[in-house]
């Protein structure tokens, strides 16, 4: 860990975090509000000895990182909204070859063609998407510029550890803001360390090295088992979250990304006003931090999901995690960053019994 901070945008922290994690291949296509990731890579990748390609589309970019990942390189792409949709097929392919890769999805406001305002529109797509098939991806949600760097760095480690795709699910607000960031130390990745990677040279031994659809290589039964074990291991070991003043809370807010930042302010403000709020901030949203909801204090009367979305996309996960043990309310602010005091007022209203619980479907 570096002792010197940098002032940078969330997007830049993602890019620099990736470079320091040894990422040496990036391909992507511009789209707001993630273009700074691409631009940063275009400016700095070469000086680190890596390859930058501005692809002709999101699909081409995904295919390029697929080829590069198959060669054992640490690879990354990034996109947002409609561009992220187009990466779904590629995610499935990466999953079906058990290849590590990191993607950043910088969310915007939902339903729209050219909407580029802040928002958290793609929770479902990131956590339940990943294209066709049963693929699952680790999804990390930074809520500060520092975390943009740290979680990206972590994403490469996890992708490598589990041979999986790891997604940085950021949002327009977090990715466009500037904060202090202590950058992690740079490491070099050895692309020749794998026995499965494509090399195109055979000095090591005469056997054929071949990356192909795993179910063809090891058979369907083994493949299904491998997948199930992988998902379960990740679920058991990689849940991450932050708790803030939950111990004695009457109402617990649940939020990630930019919304969680507002929630922290709301908790502090409400407590100053004598209202005991708490916050559970999922850092991984897959695996969802079910453990955080296991032993909720008696004091907690209800949960409130705070999201910048039209439908509450996180609500089903909260209900699964909490097993309906507490009523769930929703503060859904769509394209507006939630207002701290409005949120506090809403929470008071919930506690006063003046709000309807969320309908989840």
């Amino acid at each position: 860990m570096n002792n010197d901070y940098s002032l940078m945008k969330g997007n830049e922290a993602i890019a620099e975090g990736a470079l320091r994690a040894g990422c040496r291949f990036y391909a992507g296509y511009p789209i707001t509000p993630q273009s700074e990731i691409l631009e940063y890579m275009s400016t700095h990748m070469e000086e680190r000895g890596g390859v930058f390609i501005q692809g002709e589309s999101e699909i081409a970019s995904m295919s390029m990182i697929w080829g590069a990942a198959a060669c054992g390189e640490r690879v990354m792409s990034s996109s947002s909204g409609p561009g992220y949709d187009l990466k779904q097929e590629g995610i499935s392919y990466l999953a079906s070859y058990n290849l590590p890769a990191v993607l950043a999805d910088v969310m915007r406001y939902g339903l729209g063609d050219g909407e580029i305002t802040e928002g958290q529109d793609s929770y479902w797509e990131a956590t339940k998407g990943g294209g066709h098939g049963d693929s699952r991806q680790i999804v990390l949600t930074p809520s500060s510029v520092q975390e943009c760097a740290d979680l990206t760095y972590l994403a490469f480690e996890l992708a490598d550890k589990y041979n999986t795709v790891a997604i940085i699910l950021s949002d327009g607000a977090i990715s466009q803001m500037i904060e202090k960031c202590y950058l992690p130390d740079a490491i070099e990745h050895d692309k020749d360390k794998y026995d499965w990677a494509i090399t195109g040279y055979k000095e090591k031994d005469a056997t054929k090295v071949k990356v192909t659809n795993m179910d063809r290589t090891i058979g369907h039964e083994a493949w299904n088992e491998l997948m199930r074990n992988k998902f379960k291991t990740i679920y058991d070991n990689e849940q991450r979250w932050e708790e803030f003043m939950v111990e004695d809370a009457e109402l617990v807010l649940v939020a990630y990304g930019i919304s969680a930042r507002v929630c922290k302010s709301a908790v502090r403000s409400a407590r100053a006003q004598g209202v005991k709020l708490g916050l559970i901030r999922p850092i991984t949203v897959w695996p969802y931090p079910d453990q955080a909801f296991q032993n909720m204090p008696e004091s907690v009367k209800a949960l409130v999901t705070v999201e910048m979305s039209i439908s509450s996309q996180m609500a089903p996960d909260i209900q699964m995690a909490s097993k309906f043990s507490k009523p769930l309310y929703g503060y859904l602010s769509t394209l507006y960053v939630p207002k701290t005091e409005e949120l506090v007022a809403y929470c008071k209203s919930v506690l006063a019994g003046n709000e309807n619980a969320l309908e989840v479907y």
Partner: protein
Amino acid sequence: MAIRKKPEMINQQVGWCGGCGHGIVQRLIAECCEELGLVEKTVQVVDIACAYWSIDTLNCDGIAGPHGRCAAVATGIKKVRPEANVYVHAGDGCSYVIGLAETCYTAMRDIPITMIVVNNGTFGMTGGQMNPATTLLGDKTVSSVKGRDEKAAGKPFDMLKILETFDIEYAARGALYDTKHINQTKKMLKKGFENQRDGKGFSIIEILSPCPTNWKMSPVDSMIKLEKENELIFPVRVYKDRGGEK
């Protein structure tokens, strides 16, 4: 007479239909790699289409590209492993239809790979639908049962004419309908691999090839159709040979 024998690089029976040209293409590729001493460095990128079977039969590193994106996958590989001999073996649906942009942009970047496109005038693997790039007018397919009609479905176009507008190393079309053309095609392929070996730019070789199964013709008749009909629209020739000068 030199001994002619299945290349060692091919390690089992091919999975294609009887009379399919993909098997000949695979053999020509293997021969070129062996003759140029490139076997150990070779990486194949096959399409999710009939070319896919080559992943099972060819003894070299390999990966299947998402349908249509082989050229982009190969780009990723060549950039990370520049020493490798990276080639694409894909269909005309993959390379010219859904993957038209990927093929063109690989040419635009002049990526030094060898791209081999099997022009069989149809979507072979999915059961023989019309290929909007290569199915001839009037040809009957399961998605043009009365024959391809220009008004509704446009007409086939020569992708090599498009690719020659780019500053690439080599573009040529071969055919498989007789041994003379097979031998000529092999020369084109060899050129494509040599170009890559010599650090020249993007080479593409398209090969007119039969799909007797979906054409619903005997293999012998398929070859006749290739020569008498398809070659009229898709002439066999070298379209571009930059000769390494740029």
